[in-house]
Structure formats: structure tokens, C-alpha cells
């Protein structure tokens, strides 16, 4: 059959060659438009293919923003917008639930998806800190203060009173916090200030910077914590600690000194008297030794102690019988007042005197005889177990997959809740490069992006659009009235507004042909390429984004943004590359024009400084886009020194306003978190909370979860 | 006259193929007496191996006995079930296969394969007795008894054939069918083997059916000879008669194709053509397309296989001596 074989071979080769050719086609985004302009001859210089884009870094730095031009339509976003599909969680706004006296007993069964990596709390916040460790371990440890249910206000836990303001003592600032004298560790030992001092000292001595350590005990700010006496802790800072910095150390977990001291002493034996690089190297070794310790009989002071752990299968938490807060009733009132009443009558009131109706009342447990965390490796299996009554709640930082909702909807034994999440997904500009250094350019791009269209029409409400750097779900800090570029405008209006913003700043289009919205066709007729004020054409821009396999929502946005930019005369290519691949390109090499990623946010808006301070614009910093604004820097620094909530809120608002105008990021969207629980078996005293019920570890812990009331 | 050991009457066997029915054995009848050696000779594809397989009912799935009787020791085995046949096979009739190297399973020791047959037919024997028997058999066929623990690939061709013969003798059958027993061997080994086989036969008083396309081999060992062509018996008689006095034109041509090394030079009789396609065999006498003596009646009617002189049968309209 020789002739047939030859034919087959030839065809195969041709096919392969054809495939290769097709793949190697250069992407043509926009072609230079030849336009006959009577009189003048327009000469266009296109940057050569593969030209060194670094040479495009402008000498002028960032170009300032101009005020938005006046248009025939309203540009401030007053028009009716599509409501977000996620119920808004305002702080404290929830129907009052009167919790009856605890029924208790039985096992609270939770499904989780990954095993703990370690029971050693130091290591759990080490380089490999996972959310699963936090879920299980958070209820075991106390901190001086804690966030209240639902309203997320800071209230005392191990502390005996509200946090006092800092006091300057010479070069340093101190805060003296009284601690409760009625807390005992689960082995009977007294909980004292020594424990807190020891924990802080260990973190500082060992240079622990990973996980939560870097926020809780910030070596740049905190000098030490001393035990003035058994129940008084004195915190010393090398600079005035703002409210937010105080929050960080207030919420820092405390470990038992009498258990850990010998372990720490042994691990840290080699740290004496070292400095500089030697110290750093020795610290790394000391950390390894400390992390490697297997805790055996560690005492706990939180609402739960570690029960049994079977790697790969399950973990149990046992309720701590002498938990100081067992049985206390917490009430939050309409006016924001917080009051807790313990079983022995001890009452604590904060944030004003109780006035009006209570918006939330919670009686704390622990109610169950134990909490059983069972490891399921797949959501489907966990859901089946939920339906079958094998578990009561599924813990998942991403919430329930939407596709699985059908499985549980309509099941009368299961309730579904949806909450907002503290995070956002965004597109960032590399402002070190032209034309991204032009504020007008960034604003124009923001105007062109129709977030409502993508989230509403394309993604069918799975995500909701964002305009504020503090998400709506974070009620205390949320600022609604920021400039919402393009909000409520249709495509024609967006194009016109964007053009006007750019024209105002000196931009033009090749051949004088501008993109125009064609009403009959319902689409934009592209014009020539966008030209910078000095006449050079805008170079091909790349937009990095995670691929559909990693996040279909972001990749959808990327594809639409690419198309809107191209039809406008801004040549752009969406590069959907693997998440792991993109990280070094963005944060280390900083070789990009625009990228789309996301951030999970903390409770306080200090992250605005982390993202946008010019200090962070270096290699491996958060500010990969290079945003640099001295005024912003000064205000961002101030957010760490403001002392009162109102002061800090004002600064935060100012920062948000600046960012919303300057647009170093175009905020895109976020999704809510959906959770399902077995209402036939358990009861939550409330179901609306920032990021959902997953953090039934903190505040209150699974301590607040109760057995379902008998019907 | 004693009862014949084996009596085959009008045996017809067909293969069912996609192209149609293949008439492999057509109306074959012969008998075999105790101690007698019958030789079946013919070209490749003439049906002699098929006859052997049919007698043992070792047909493949698409082969079936269309009609006829096979009477072994007085019982017709054609209606026997597989279960019943298992006793007949090897216990009453055994077989020595063509190309014996393939008849032995390469992964078992030779001795064990013989013991396997013994276990089946003589289950009352102990291990020791069976080993003893194998040793005896090996000695009988001229093999060292140590060889019984060796694997088939360690034997030479001749040794393998002896081993297979030993296996065939193991259960004391009344008759052995030897299908091309020496075809795969060189002439020297062939010679000694044939002599030895003749000897066991006499020694043990067994009947044998030799099947071969080699006329010389058949001449050496057979008492009686049957010549087959295209699935049918053309002629049958004593070895003397067949070789020196053939009456069927085919036999005549066959014998002359094997000229004597002594005596006068004679011309070889060349038969034009090839053996017929058994899917569509010729009408009448299957030899007629090639027969120099064929006439119209040969085309139309099948000649009866009948005696032309005592013990000498042929199926021909124009046997020698009756030709015009």
C-alpha cells in the first residue's frame, strides 16, 4: 500500500504545517487607516514591531487629572443603575432574633475541604498559612480584643476594658491595657499578661513575618509588650500607633507562656547577640525548629480546645468548660451600642448607651459537646453529605459553587444564605508607561468599561460591579459617593465622554478619524489609532488576565475590555495566562501594560496604603503599577496615626476619593458568598455577616452555633 | 472376522464459511482392524487431516458432521456429547499431531504434559506411578527419562516427535492417528522414527492411521492405503495393490509422480490444473476436470466407491482395466 502511505504522510505534514502557520499568525489589532485629509499630509510613525517598550517610559512621570468635561448627559452617575444581586449588609442591620436558652448537646458537624497542615499555631501562621488552619484554630485562642457579632466593632475579650489611647513617653508611645483576672488556661493555670508579653516577644525575637504575625505583632512599630503586673500589659511602640495599628495588635492571638517557653527557649538558643544578616539566618533556623515542634497537651483559653486529630480524615474541637465567656448574652442596639452580660452579671457596655430596639441578641455557648470537622475532598460529596444529614455546615472560603445550588434548593432541611465578601477584582494600569501615565487616558478607559453589562447581561448576575475601594459589605468604612466613571451611561455616551476626556488633554486620532457610535448598526465604527498629545501613536498594549480555567469571570472581563479598547482606537491584546505565570511577570518583572487580578481585604482600610503607597512600587511590592502620588502617600501614612474612628474615616474617604479620580485601578467586580447549612439540625443566631458564616470561628466561634430548635 | 476397531460410514463433514459451505469430507467410508496400519495419502487440502479431526470430533466451531457414522469399538460416536467424547479421546483413540513442536505447551514440562493425560484417564494412579509410567514411555520411544523435566523448547525436533508419540501412547489407546508424523523432520530421523513406530505398533498390537502427502512414507508403514482427492476417497486397497496396481487415474498419476530409483526411466505423468475449490466442487466425479479419461458421465454422476476386486475399492467410471 505504498502510494497510500505516501499520500497519508504528505497530508499529515501539510496539516501540521497549516496548524503551525495558523498559530503563528501575528495578531493584527488595528490597521493604520489611510485617510485623505484635504491639504495637510498626515505622517504617522508606528513604533516598530518588538521595539523596546521601556523606551516609552515618559520622562514627565504621571500626568495630572483634569476635571471631567461637561457633557450633554449626566456624567456623575445619577441614572438608574442595576441593583447588585447580592443583598447589602449594613452593619448591625438584621432582624432581631431572640435566642432562647441553650439546648445544647450533640455534635456540630462541619465539612471542610483540606486538612490542617499543623496543630502548631506558630507554624500555622508560617509560610504556609492556610484558611483551614484558621477555621479550626481560631476558636482556640484568645486575643485582648475581638470583633463583635455582625456589627464588627472591637470589644474586649481578654482585656478588661475598652482600649485606652496611646501615651507618649519620650521617644516611644505606650498603651496600658488591663486584662481580666478570671481567665484560666485549659490546664488550670492562670491567664496573665505574661502570656501576651511572651507571645509578642517570641514573634519579635524570631522575626516571624509570615501569615498573620506580620500584622498582629508588627516589628516595624511594636517594640515590646511588658507585663507590668499579672493583669496589666504595657505595649510600647516606636511611633504613635494609630487606631488601625492598635486594632492589629488588639486582635493578636495569645499563646500560653508556661507551655511554650521551654520550646521557644530551645529553638531560639542560637539567637543571642546576633545582628544583621547573621541574625536573619539564625532566625530562619530558629523558626524551623519552633515550627517543627509537635504540640502535646497545649493548653487553650478560647471557647474550644483541640480534641482529636486524624490526619486526612477529621479533627475535633472540644468545648472548653471554663471558657470565660460561656453563656454571656450580647446585645447590639439600633444606635450601635454594644452590651454584653455574663452569667454572673458582669456587664460591659460600649459605643454609647443602649437606646432603642436591639437589632441583635446572641447568647454564646459553646452549646455542642464537640465540633467535628470532617474532610471532604469534593464539593459534590460534601453537598450529598449535607443533604443526607451527615454534616450540618460546609466550610469553604469560596462558598458554594453556583452550579450546585440546584442540589440544595428546595430541600426543606437546608437553608441557603448569601453574603457580601470583603474583596474586589480590579484592573491595574502600569503608570510608568505611556499612555497609562496620563490620568485622562485611565479615566477614558474606565469610562469605556461597561461593568454592568458584563456582570448583568453576560455573567447573568453572578458578579456585581464595584466602584468603591472599600466594598459595600464593609459597612463601617464604605463610601458610596465616589466618582463612578461611566456609571449608567450607554455605549454611545461612553464613547463620547471618553473622547472628550482625551481631547481635553491633547489626544487625537490618526487621520483625524475618531471612533463614532453608529446608531443604526448599534455598534461603534472604529476610527484611527489613538495618538498621544505629541502625535506618537499609542503602542500595542497588553492586558494580562487569569484564564477561563482559573477564573472565567475575570477572563470574560478581559475579553470585553480588549474589544472596547480596540474599537476605540487603543490597540490592546488580552493575554490570558496562567495565574502562577503571571505573578512574577507582574510583581517582580513589572513587565505589563495592564493586568486584572484581585485582592482579599482586611477589616480596616489600611490596605489602601499597602496597594498605592509609592514605597510599594518597588520590585516585589504590592504597587506593581507604580502609582506615585506624594499627597496620597502623606495621607496614606496618616491612616496609621489617626487616633479616632472619625479621623480615620475622614482620611479613608479622602484616599478613596483620590483613587476614584486618579484611577490607578479600574475596580471591576466581586461575587458574594453563598453558604448552605442544615437548618433542620443547627441554628445560627444571625445569618448576615461580612463574608458569611464561615468565620463562625471569630467572633464567638462555633460557640454561637446552637442546635436547631425543635419544631 | 473380528469386529473392526473403527468403522467410518459415509462420513460427510462441512465447514460453514462466509463464502458458503465448504465440503471438506464427502462420503468417506473405511474401516480399521485391530493391529492394522492404514495409510491415508493425498495432496494438501484433500481432506485427510479433516478426516482425522472428524474422527476425534475435534472440529472447530464452523465445522460440523453433516452425515455419516463413526463406529468405534461398536459404538457410533457421532451423537456423543463433549463429555462422552472426552473418554474416547486419548483413551480409545489418540493422535500424533503434525509439527509436534506446537502440540506441546511451551510453558509446561514435557513430563507434566504426559502426566496431565494420565491424570485425566487414569485418575487412580498416584504421582509416583505416573512418573514411573512416563519413564517407561520415554524408554519405549528412545528418550532419556531425565528429559521429562525439561521444557519443549529444549528438545530437538526428533526428540519432540518421540515425546509426542510417548504422550499418544500413554493411556493405552486402541488406535493412534498419526498426522504427518515425520514431515517436519530430516530424512535420517524420519527413517528411524518410522521404523520405530512400526515396531511399537507391532509390539503393542495397536492400530494406526498414518496420514501423509508423502507417498514414500505411506509405503513404508501402511498395510492398507487410502487415496483421497478433493474430500473423497478415490481408491483404497492393500499397499501392494495401490502402489503396483492402481486403478484410479488419480492414483496412477500419483504413483508415477514418485518414480522408482531402480528400473527403467519412465516419463512422469503430468496432470494439468489444480485440486478443485471445495466451496464449489465439480459436479459428478470431482477429478473429472483433470482426468485424461473423463467422459460425459464423469461430469454428471458421482461414481460409487465400490469394490473392483476383493478388498480393492475405487470410485471411478473408467478404472484401469475397464477403460476403453
Amino acid at each position, binding site marked *: 500500500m505504498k502510494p497510500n502511505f505516501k499520500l497519508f504522510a504528505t497530508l499529515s505534514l501539510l496539516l501540521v504545517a497549516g496548524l503551525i502557520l495558523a498559530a503563528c499568525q501575528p495578531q493584527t489589532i488595528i490597521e493604520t487607516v489611510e485617510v485623505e485629509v484635504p491639504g495637510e499630509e498626515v505622517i504617522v510613525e508606528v513604533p516598530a514591531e518588538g521595539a523596546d517598550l521601556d523606551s516609552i517610559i515618559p520622562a514627565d512621570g504621571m500626568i495630572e487629572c483634569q476635571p471631567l468635561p461637561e457633557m450633554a448627559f449626566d456624567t456623575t452617575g445619577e441614572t438608574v443603575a442595576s441593583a447588585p444581586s447580592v443583598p447589602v449588609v449594613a452593619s448591625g442591620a438584621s432582624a432581631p432574633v431572640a435566642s432562647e436558652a441553650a439546648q445544647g448537646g450533640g455534635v456540630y458537624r462541619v465539612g471542610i475541604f483540606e486538612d490542617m*497542615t499543623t496543630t502548631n499555631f506558630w507554624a500555622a501562621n508560617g509560610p504556609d498559612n492556610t484558611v483551614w488552619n484558621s477555621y479550626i484554630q481560631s476558636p482556640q485562642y484568645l486575643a485582648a480584643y475581638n470583633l463583635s457579632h455582625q456589627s464588627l466593632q472591637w470589644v474586649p475579650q481578654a482585656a478588661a476594658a475598652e482600649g485606652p489611647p496611646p501615651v507618649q513617653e519620650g521617644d516611644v508611645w505606650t498603651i496600658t491595657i488591663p486584662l481580666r483576672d478570671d481567665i484560666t488556661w485549659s490546664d488550670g493555670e492562670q491567664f496573665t499578661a505574661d502570656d501576651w508579653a511572651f507571645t509578642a516577644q517570641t514573634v519579635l525575637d524570631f522575626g516571624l513575618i509570615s501569615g498573620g504575625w506580620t500584622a498582629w505583632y508588627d516589628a516595624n512599630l511594636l517594640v515590646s509588650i511588658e507585663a507590668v503586673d499579672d493583669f496589666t500589659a504595657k505595649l510600647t511602640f516606636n511611633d504613635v500607633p494609630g487606631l488601625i495599628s492598635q486594632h492589629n495588635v488588639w486582635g493578636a492571638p495569645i499563646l500560653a507562656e508556661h507551655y511554650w517557653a521551654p520550646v521557644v527557649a530551645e529553638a531560639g538558643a542560637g539567637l543571642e547577640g546576633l545582628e544583621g544578616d547573621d541574625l536573619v539566618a539564625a532566625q530562619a533556623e530558629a523558626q524551623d525548629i519552633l515550627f517543627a515542634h509537635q504540640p502535646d497537651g497545649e493548653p487553650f483559653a478560647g471557647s474550644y480546645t483541640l480534641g482529636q486529630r486524624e490526619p486526612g480524615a477529621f479533627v475535633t474541637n472540644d468545648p472548653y468548660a471554663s471558657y470565660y465567656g460561656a453563656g454571656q448574652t450580647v446585645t447590639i442596639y439600633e444606635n450601635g451600642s454594644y452590651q454584653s452580660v455574663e452569667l454572673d452579671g458582669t456587664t460591659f457596655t460600649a459605643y454609647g448607651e443602649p437606646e432603642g430596639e436591639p437589632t441583635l441578641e446572641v447568647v454564646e455557648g459553646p452549646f455542642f459537646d464537640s465540633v467535628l470537622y470532617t474532610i471532604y475532598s469534593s464539593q459534590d460529596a460534601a453537598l450529598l453529605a449535607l443533604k443526607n444529614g451527615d454534616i450540618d455546615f460546609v466550610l469553604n472560603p469560596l462558598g458554594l459553587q453556583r452550579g450546585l445550588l440546584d442540589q440544595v434548593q428546595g430541600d426543606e432541611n437546608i437553608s441557603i444564605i448569601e453574603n457580601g465578601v470583603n474583596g474586589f477584582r480590579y484592573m491595574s494600569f502600569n503608570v510608568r508607561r505611556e499612555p497609562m501615565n496620563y490620568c485622562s487616558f485611565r479615566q477614558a478607559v474606565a469610562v469605556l468599561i461597561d461593568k454592568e453589562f458584563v456582570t448583568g447581561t453576560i455573567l447573568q448576575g453572578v458578579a456585581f460591579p464595584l466602584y468603591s475601594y472599600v466594598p459595600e459589605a464593609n459597612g463601617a468604612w464604605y463610601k458610596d459617593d465616589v466618582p463612578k466613571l461611566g456609571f449608567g451611561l450607554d455605549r454611545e455616551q461612553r464613547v463620547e465622554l471618553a473622547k472628550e476626556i482625551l481631547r481635553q488633554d491633547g489626544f487625537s486620532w490618526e487621520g483625524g478619524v475618531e471612533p463614532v457610535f453608529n446608531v443604526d448598526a448599534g455598534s461603534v465604527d472604529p476610527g484611527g489609532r489613538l495618538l498621544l498629545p505629541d502625535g506618537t501613536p499609542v503602542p500595542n498594549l497588553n492586558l494580562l488576565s487569569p484564564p477561563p480555567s482559573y477564573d472565567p469571570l475575570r477572563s470574560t472581563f478581559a475579553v470585553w475590555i480588549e474589544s472596547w479598547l480596540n474599537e476605540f482606537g487603543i490597540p490592546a491584546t488580552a493575554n490570558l495566562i496562567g495565574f502562577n505565570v503571571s505573578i512574577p511577570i507582574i510583581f517582580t518583572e513589572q513587565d505589563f501594560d495592564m493586568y486584572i487580578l484581585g485582592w482579599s481585604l482586611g477589616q480596616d482600610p489600611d490596605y489602601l496604603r499597602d496597594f498605592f503607597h509609592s514605597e510599594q512600587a518597588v520590585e516585589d*511590592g*504590592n504597587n506593581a503599577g507604580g502609582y506615585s502620588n506624594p499627597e496620597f502617600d502623606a495621607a496614606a501614612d496618616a491612616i496609621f496615626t489617626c487616633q479616632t474612628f472619625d479621623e480615620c474615616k475622614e482620611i479613608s474617604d479622602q484616599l478613596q476619593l483620590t483613587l476614584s479620580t486618579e484611577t490607578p485601578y479600574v475596580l471591576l467586580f466581586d461575587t458574594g458568598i453563598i453558604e448552605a447549612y442544615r437548618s433542620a439540625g443547627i441554628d445560627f443566631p444571625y445569618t448576615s455577616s461580612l463574608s458569611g458564616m464561615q468565620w463562625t470561628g471569630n467572633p464567638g466561634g462555633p460557640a454561637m452555633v446552637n442546635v436547631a430548635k425543635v419544631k | 472376522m473380528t469386529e473392526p476397531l473403527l468403522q467410518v460410514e459415509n462420513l460427510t463433514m462441512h465447514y460453514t464459511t462466509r463464502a458458503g459451505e465448504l465440503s471438506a469430507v464427502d462420503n468417506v467410508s473405511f474401516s480399521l482392524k485391530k493391529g492394522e496400519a492404514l495409510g491415508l495419502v493425498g495432496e494438501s487440502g484433500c481432506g485427510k487431516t479433516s478426516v482425522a479431526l472428524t474422527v476425534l470430533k475435534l472440529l472447530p466451531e464452523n465445522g460440523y458432521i453433516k452425515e455419516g457414522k463413526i463406529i468405534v469399538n461398536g459404538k457410533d460416536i457421532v451423537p456423543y456429547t463433549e463429555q462422552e467424547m472426552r473418554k474416547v479421546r486419548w483413551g480409545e483413540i489418540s493422535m500424533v499431531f503434525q509439527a509436534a513442536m506446537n502440540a506441546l505447551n511451551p510453558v509446561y514440562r514435557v513430563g507434566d504434559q504426559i502426566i496431565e493425560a494420565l491424570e485425566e484417564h487414569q485418575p487412580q494412579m498416584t504421582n509416583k506411578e505416573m512418573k514411573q509410567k512416563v519413564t517407561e514411555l520415554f524408554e519405549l520411544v528412545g528418550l532419556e527419562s531425565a528429559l521429562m523435566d525439561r521444557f519443549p523448547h529444549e528438545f530437538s525436533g526428533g526428540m519432540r516427535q518421540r515425546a509426542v508419540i510417548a504422550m499418544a501412547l500413554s493411556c493405552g489407546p486402541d488406535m493412534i492417528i498419526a498426522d504427518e508424523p515425520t514431515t517436519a523432520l530430516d530424512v535420517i530421523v524420519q527413517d528411524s522414527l518410522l521404523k520405530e513406530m512400526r515396531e511399537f505398533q507391532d509390539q503393542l498390537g495397536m492400530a494406526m492411521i498414518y496420514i501423509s502427502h508423502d507417498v514414500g512414507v505411506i509405503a513404508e508403514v501402511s498395510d492398507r492405503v487410502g487415496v483421497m482427492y478433493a474430500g473423497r476417497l478415490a481408491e483404497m486397497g492393500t499397499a501392494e495393490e495401490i502402489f503396483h496396481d492402481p486403478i484410479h487415474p488419480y492414483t496412477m498419476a500419483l504413483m508415477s509422480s514418485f518414480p522408482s530409483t531402480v528400473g527403467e526411466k519412465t516419463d512422469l505423468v503430468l496432470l494439468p490444473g489444480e485440486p478443485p475449490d471445495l466451496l464449489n466442487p465439480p459436479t459428478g466425479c470431482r477429478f473429472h476436470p483433470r482426468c485424461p479419461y473423463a467422459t460425459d458421465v464423469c461430469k454428471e454422476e458421482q461414481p460409487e466407491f465400490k469394490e473392483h476386486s476383493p478388498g480393492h475399492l475405487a470410485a471411478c467410471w473408467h478404472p484401469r482395466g475397464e477403460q476403453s
Partner: protein
Amino acid sequence: MRGYLFKRLAQIVITFFLFLSAIFFLVDAQPGDYGNVFYSNPRLTPEQRQQLKANLGLDQPTWVRYTKWMSSFLQGDLGISFSNYPRPVIDVIAERAPRTIVLFMSATVVSFYFGFMAGKLLAWNRGGLVEYASTIGGVSLYTVFTPWFALIMIWVFAFRLGWFPIGKFIEPTAWIGAPTEVNDVFIRLIFTALIASVLLFTLLVSVGRLNTNQRRPATWIGMAVIAAGALIYWLNTGLGVYALDILWHLTLPIITLALISFAGSMLLTRNSMLETLREDYVLAARAKGISEKAIRDRHAARNAMLPVVTSFVFSLAFAIDGGVITETVFSWPGMGRTLLTAANAEDIPMVLGALVFTGTLALTAHLVADILYAYLDPRIRYA
């Protein structure tokens, strides 16, 4: 034979090192490194990120890290896993490997056993509804979308019918307060299986010496003795209940895995058998009056099993790799998931550690297969 073994061992060692080196460089060649995870915590300063990366040794060039890893490996130290910091790699493997091995080796044995039986019967009884049904059924199951099929099995047998648990390898409530850890029971199970197999093998070999009549009852008695021995051992340790719990959780995944993969060995056996059936020794065996079953098993299948045995040995070796899909759907976190997450996160010590075992077992399986082949087919002898 000795010379052959020696040469092969040398080959194995060289291949092994080439393999490990190739993996190291391949995983490392992925853009970025494990340090990527530190970018998701915005509170870390750039210096801190670099510090954390340096602590893991990621700031050093590839060659330096490779040499370091190789030298500690040669000293028997597999290093510390990045993603399970600070657990040593060997610790993580020791935790996950026993359950992976128990599940996947059992499943392999069951799958091959049934595949072989089915293939043997199919080749023997050609044609008919059974052949069509088994082939179509087997191939459909072989090509079915595994995660979906596994879920359906769980949904039908565990959720709807309640005959089996919904995944997991133990029932947590049964183990609260257990006298020993799960891995202990798994390891005991592995040893029981190992010893029982060796005893069974010896039994089958020695039974061959007996007469035919004695063989069958002797085999059954022998197997009963072995089973009784195992039972007594387990009752003695008092862990019988726990072992049963594990076995109950093993059942559904094994059935699922066996259903999905038996068609492979079934078709292989069938094809191999069809070839051996044409051999003359099968006809000769028939002529000897041997029973159908004996012909099928002793003659045809015995020769047909050679490629199947090789395939089986390899499958056993790769049992330690587990299977991500099965582990995920049935909630048996094992080596498959570990390897996948480690490879995705660029946790090089973990990937290499896991593959050290895979490589060792696979290369050993090669050697074992070669030796086994020589044992099964006397025609093969190595110079």
C-alpha cells in the same frame, strides 16, 4: 542470570537519577516559584517577601538548589515541603501513602482479577449476547467521564440506597477515642495482605505437587487456614472493628475503580487468548480429552496471561501515584492530590519526594516484570 540482574540494576540506578534530575528542572522551569503565594498577603513588605523566599532557598540559582537537594537526597533526607511547611516531605508521604496504597493496590488487584476472568470467558465463548454486552459495557465504563461516574456511584449506592458511606475512608464518629491512629490500621492491613499473598503463592505452588484429586480440596483448606490466621490476628489486636470500618469505606471506591478499569485487562486478556487459542497445543489438549475448563485455564489462559501479568505489575507499581479524581470524589486525600497540588504550587521537594517513590516502584516493577516473564515463559532466558 546474575550478570543480567547486575546490568539491569545499574541501568535502573542511572535511569532513576536521570528521572529525578529531569523532574527537578522541569518543575523548576515553570514560571515563578513557590514564593508566588506570598503576594496574596498585601501586608508583607517587598523585603519581607524576599526574606520569606530566601528562607526557602528560592533566591538561589537553579544549579545550587539542585545540588543541595541531590546531596541531601543521597544522604537520605528528602527535605522539607514548602506547602506543608515545616513538615518534612517524608512525613507527608508517610501520612498519605498508606491509604493511597491500600485503595489503589486493592482496586488494581480486583480490577485485573475480574478483567482477566472476564477476558478469559469472553475469548472462550465467542459470539453471543454476553460478548457484545461485556465488550460494550466494559468499554463504555472505561471511557466514561470518571468524576461523573464516581459521583453517580456515590449518589446511587451511598446517598439513595445508603449501602455505603458517602466517601471518606473512616467514619469519624467511630474513631473518636480510638486506641490507635488510622495509619496504623492501614499499615497493618497492608502487612496482612502482603503476608497472605506470600502464603497464598506458596500454597498454590506446593499444591501442584499433589495429585489432581487432592489439589482442589487442599487449595480450599489452605485458603481457609490463611483466612483464619488473618482473622485471629485481627481479633487479637482488638482493632478488628476499625479495620472493618476501613474495609466498608473501601468497598465503593474499589467497585467504582474496578468497573472503570477492568475493560483494559479484559480486552487485553481476550485478545491474547484469541491468539493462544489458535495454537496447536490447545487442539492437542482437547485431543487428550482434558475438560474444557482445564484447557481454557491451564493451556490457553496460562499462555495468554503473560502480557496481562506485565500490565498488572506496572499498574501495581503506579498504585502509589493514586488517582486525583478518585481521591477527590471519594474524599480519600492521598498521593494523587498531594502530587498535583505540589506540582501546581511548585513545591519542588514535595514533588520530587513523591516521585522518588513512584520512580523506585516503577523501575522495580520493570525488573520484577522481566524476572516474572522469565519465570512464566521458560523460553525466555537472559544471558
